[in-house]
């Protein structure tokens, strides 16, 4: 028996450790190299159980490997305009305490990374934007951003912070028990509060399709928040394995797989993340291409795929018409525990992208019937 090479786990020689590393080891997690860090892929109960627990109750994820940073300028308008030169989202009109998803773009409109941008609710912090970027991209993102900032806006890396995500229908009740203010937060909002007595930045967002929160606190204190949350019988630790199956069912892109420098946000179906003002005004890298694609469409688009049998179609699987013409490729695929069946996403030629279109996935040389499906595969449970 031999496992196929997993590109995610081709790690560095001496992996970095998050502030929660010793806790994962003590919990019996299976640790794997991921984006330069030694991370828990699963705890002893396994990915299926962790996935289902998150959908039914509340899962706690260590995402401290992700890049946290602040853009700091003299006022919101100045800092927002500096970031707008790098991303296609409307940041100037982002209200205090609100969060937005966007992408760092290259001059061709390809995606260098995707990120969350948050404007502080605190008037004393006017001019600061909080960024969360992908772990695997952060060492490239930071110099990219710094090289393009005006002299009065600085990038400050929040190196000494940890980040955890609490996700699932039981997340709000679990967090409210130790941070009552969290209960009343709206989706994609952020505020500073005490969590188990520790000062933390809390956002109501996540990467599982469920209601939930991301909690950022000092690296020296994040362990106390982790431990306190795990005292709740409805909260269990969840590894990267279930994080991946949860986000796949939710139809969310994984950078380096579903989006990268060769894909534009429009090909990826991320049009919703580019607000009207930016579409009209442009002024971001690759704007000419993106404005053209918004008007004319793209030759290929990201779609959901539902194999008809039980066999999962993994990343790299060719997508063909029933006549055998290859018209696309799977970028993420596997088994959806909540779906209780395989699901995948990938890019196909526009002519074959309508939901319900019958296609074949070429798995181990054999064509397996599949159908274009709308995403998410599992309905989102966001608190609106």
């Amino acid at each position, binding site marked *: *028996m*031999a*496992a*196929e090479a*997993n590109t995610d786990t081709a790690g560095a020689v001496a992996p970095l450790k998050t502030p929660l590393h010793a806790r994962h080891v003590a919990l019996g997690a299976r640790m794997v190299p991921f984006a330069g860090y030694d991370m828990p*892929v*699963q705890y002893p109960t*396994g*990915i*299926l*159980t962790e*996935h289902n627990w998150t959908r039914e109750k509340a899962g706690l994820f260590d995402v401290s490997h992700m890049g946290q940073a602040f853009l700091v300028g003299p006022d919101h308008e100045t800092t927002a305009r500096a970031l707008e030169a790098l991303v296609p989202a409307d940041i100037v009109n982002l209200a205090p305490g609100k969060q937005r998803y966007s992408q760092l773009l290259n001059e061709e409109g390809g995606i260098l990374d995707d990120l969350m941008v948050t404007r502080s609710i605190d008037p004393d912090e006017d001019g600061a934007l909080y960024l969360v970027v992908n772990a695997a991209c952060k060492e490239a993102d930071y110099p990219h951003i710094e090289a393009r900032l005006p002299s009065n806006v600085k990038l400050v890396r929040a190196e000494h912070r940890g980040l955890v995500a609490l996700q699932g229908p039981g997340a709000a009740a679990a967090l409210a028990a130790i941070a009552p203010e969290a209960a009343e937060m709206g989706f994609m909002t952020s505020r500073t509060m005490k969590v188990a007595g520790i000062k933390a930045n809390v956002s109501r967002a996540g990467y599982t399709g469920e209601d939930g929160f991301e909690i950022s606190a000092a690296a020296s204190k994040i362990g106390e928040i982790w431990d306190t949350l795990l005292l709740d019988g409805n909260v269990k630790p969840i590894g990267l*394995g*279930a994080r*991946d*199956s949860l986000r796949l069912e939710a139809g969310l892109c994984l950078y380096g797989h579903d989006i990268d420098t060769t894909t534009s946000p429009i090909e990826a179906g991320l049009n919703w993340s580019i607000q009207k003002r930016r579409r009209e005004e442009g002024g971001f890298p690759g704007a000419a291409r993106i404005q053209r694609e918004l008007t004319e469409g793209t030759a290929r688009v990201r779609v959901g795929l539902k194999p008809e049998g*039980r*066999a*999962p179609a*993994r990343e790299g699987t060719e997508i063909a018409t029933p006549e055998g013409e290859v018209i696309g490729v799977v970028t993420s695929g*596997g*088994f959806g*525990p909540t779906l209780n069946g*395989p699901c995948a996403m990938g890019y196909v030629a526009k002519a074959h992208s309508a939901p319900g279109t019958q296609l074949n996935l070429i798995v*181990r040389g054999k064509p397996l019937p599949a159908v274009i499906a709308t995403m998410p595969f599992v309905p989102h449970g966001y608190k609106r």
Partner: protein
Amino acid sequence: MAETRYSKDHEYIRIEGDVGTVGISDYAQSQLGDVVFVELPTVGKALAKGSEAAVVESVKAASEVYAPVSGEVVEVNGELEAAPGTVNEDPAGKGWFLKIRIKDAAELDALMGEAEYQDYVKTL
């Protein structure tokens, strides 16, 4: 009593006369994690030692199961189609993959016995 021998790739073969029952070891299933799909060969297929006999997929990844010896597939465990998790629950029993008519019993000598395999796993 039937003898069980193991490959370095963690397949086992339980030998009863000239037929061997092939599956993956308890160590292998624990390394794989939750099995969600098993692809089995067709009955009658001739397998060469070390060739791909089956595919086992966990939530994370697909892995090949190799034929520990050469021979012809005489039976496959169709139950795994509907209940792939049986591979995790009972790898040495109900979680078997296929039965093979052993072509050359001498090939079994290259495989490890129970004690030798358990020692081998400890080194991994």
